[in-house]
């Protein structure tokens, strides 16, 4: 459990952050630029002192100076030591660490660093630099890892190159990770817990599934990205039609997925604009999925549209409907409803 309760004033900006997040896993700090994300991770790392408050990790109060705190930090700009080789950089923290649970060769192979060891940082691409920075932080045997927008300075291709390493880290090591980002897709793909920061305050937090239903999250994500994030298990594969069947809550959804394994857990995003509501299902539709559920809540989004949360049993979908449609179908909380979803509109994260 990471529990943060701090206050920090800097000029006319005030950070007042308070949250508790489960560990291990990836805790994403999500928010717009300037909302205080970096200030908060600097406080967790010990590079900044909070005016008031404490940070606790698994029952241990983090109040020691940064150099004795054992919190790994991967900065946005990598910050590799230019006068050391890649290997020298990797060993910098290792030499000064007390434990040695995470060993050099494992990290080198996990992050694919073997061909880079003899190089100097300036001879590396941006993505390679971030991988080295990640390895260097890991080898310092951290209690926790802070990643401050580690992909922000990379282009889309480099991002795709580094992202799988973060997933490996999440799935193979038990080191808790705090991941700072203002990129929605990164956060939805990697996070196990999301903390939403707005103007220096935590406005929402929870699992990606929970947070995707929060209005404050939807406001930051933007109208086009409003939708449910769902956790599912692949139950069946149709290799001919390249469709897989996903068990989500009590509902089953068919999804277009080129390479998936049965039994695999996947996270999918279903945008509110892609869900059609119907009071009865007629035949002859191209839609692959029709799930029955009931309307949990119905909230106005703007003067013309409403967002309906559809409980399908163990999972909630979000559908955007026009006010006009809502009136015609006489939508109201509690009523039974069909949700129609095209197989292609479910996006595996």
């Amino acid at each position, binding site marked *: 459990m990471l529990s943060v309760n701090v206050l920090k004033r800097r000029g006319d900006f005030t950070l007042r952050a308070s949250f508790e997040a489960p560990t291990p896993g990836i805790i994403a700090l999500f928010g717009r630029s300037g909302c205080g994300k970096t200030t908060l991770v600097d406080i967790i790392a010990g590079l900044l002192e909070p005016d008031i408050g404490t940070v606790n990790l698994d029952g241990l109060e983090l109040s020691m100076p*940064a150099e004795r705190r054992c919190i790994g930090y991967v900065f946005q700009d990598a*910050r590799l030591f230019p006068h050391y080789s890649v290997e020298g950089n990797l060993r*910098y923290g290792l030499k000064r660490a007390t434990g040695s649970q995470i060993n050099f060769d494992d990290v080198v192979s996990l992050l694919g660093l073997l061909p880079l060891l003899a190089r100097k940082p*300036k001879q590396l691409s941006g993505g390679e630099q971030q991988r080295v920075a990640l390895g260097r932080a890991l080898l310092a045997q951290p209690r926790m890892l802070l990643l401050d927008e580690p992909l922000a300075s990379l282009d889309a291709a480099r991002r795709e190159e580094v992202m799988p390493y973060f997933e490996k880290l999440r799935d193979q090591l038990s080191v808790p990770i705090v991941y700072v980002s203002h990129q929605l897709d990164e956060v939805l793909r990697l996070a196990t817990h999301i903390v939403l920061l707005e103007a220096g305050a935590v406005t929402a937090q929870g699992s990606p599934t929970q947070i995707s239903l929060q209005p404050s999250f939807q406001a930051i994500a933007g109208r086009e990205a409003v939708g449910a994030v769902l956790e599912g298990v692949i139950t069946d594969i149709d290799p001919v039609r390249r469709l897989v069947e996903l068990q989500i809550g009590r509902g089953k959804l068919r999804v277009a997925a080129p390479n998936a394994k049965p039994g695999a857990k996947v996270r999918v995003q279903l945008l509110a604009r892609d869900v059609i509501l119907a009071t009865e299902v007629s035949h002859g539709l191209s839609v692959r999925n029709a799930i029955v559920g009931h309307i949990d809540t119905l909230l106005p989004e703007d003067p013309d549209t409403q967002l309906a949360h559809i409980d399908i049993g163990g999972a909630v979908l979000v559908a955007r409907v026009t006010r006009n449609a809502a009136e015609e179908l006489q939508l109201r909380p509690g009523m039974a409803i069909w949700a129609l979803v095209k197989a292609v509109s479910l996006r595996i994260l």
Partner: protein
Amino acid sequence: MIGELSSAEMDALRLSLEVATRSVLFSLPFAVFIAWILTRVRFPGRTLFDALVHLPLVLPPVAVGYLLLLLLGTRGPIGHWLNEHFGIVLVFSTAGAALATAVMTFPLMVRSIRIALENVDRGLEAAARTLGAGPLDRFTTVTLPLMLPGVLAGVVTAFAASLGEFGAVITFVSNIPGKTRTLPLALYTAIQSPDGDAMALRLAILSFVLGLAGLLLAEFLARRMRNALGR
């Protein structure tokens, strides 16, 4: 007219090199320390302190030499104490020449080291900190290696300038052959003597060559080191 160097000229050259070496070795640790304070520590009176450090650049060298004489002469407050307790006499000695030179070239060295220190990315020090490096560890493994090209440039520049220091030396430690008569003092002496033209010219050329070589060496070393540091 320009032939071999005479033994008096060789003495002057040797003495100049010795004075410059001692002066640089003596002032280097202080210069690093003062540069660090001026860059990293905020304290009241910092601007005044900065000005005091740079004062030798603008003061007449003779005034600096005279001040040293007042303070460090055998009857001066510090000089008397040094003589009484340690038997150290700085006036009329090679050590005194080195000290006077060190004071005069100190601002040059501080300036160069300070610029180097200002250019060290504080973010790298923060990174070292999160990797478990304490203050001294960070300074020796990150800050110092990264500012080394500037330190080296400062050392060579100060060394080259030390070879030519005249006013402060002649005022503080006089013009004693073999003890305090460095190149510029020997040059001055040669100009003063009726048949010293050839010697003066040789010494002037020697000074010119040494100065130029020093500056070129500084640039060369700084460049090589920047490459070694991966910039």
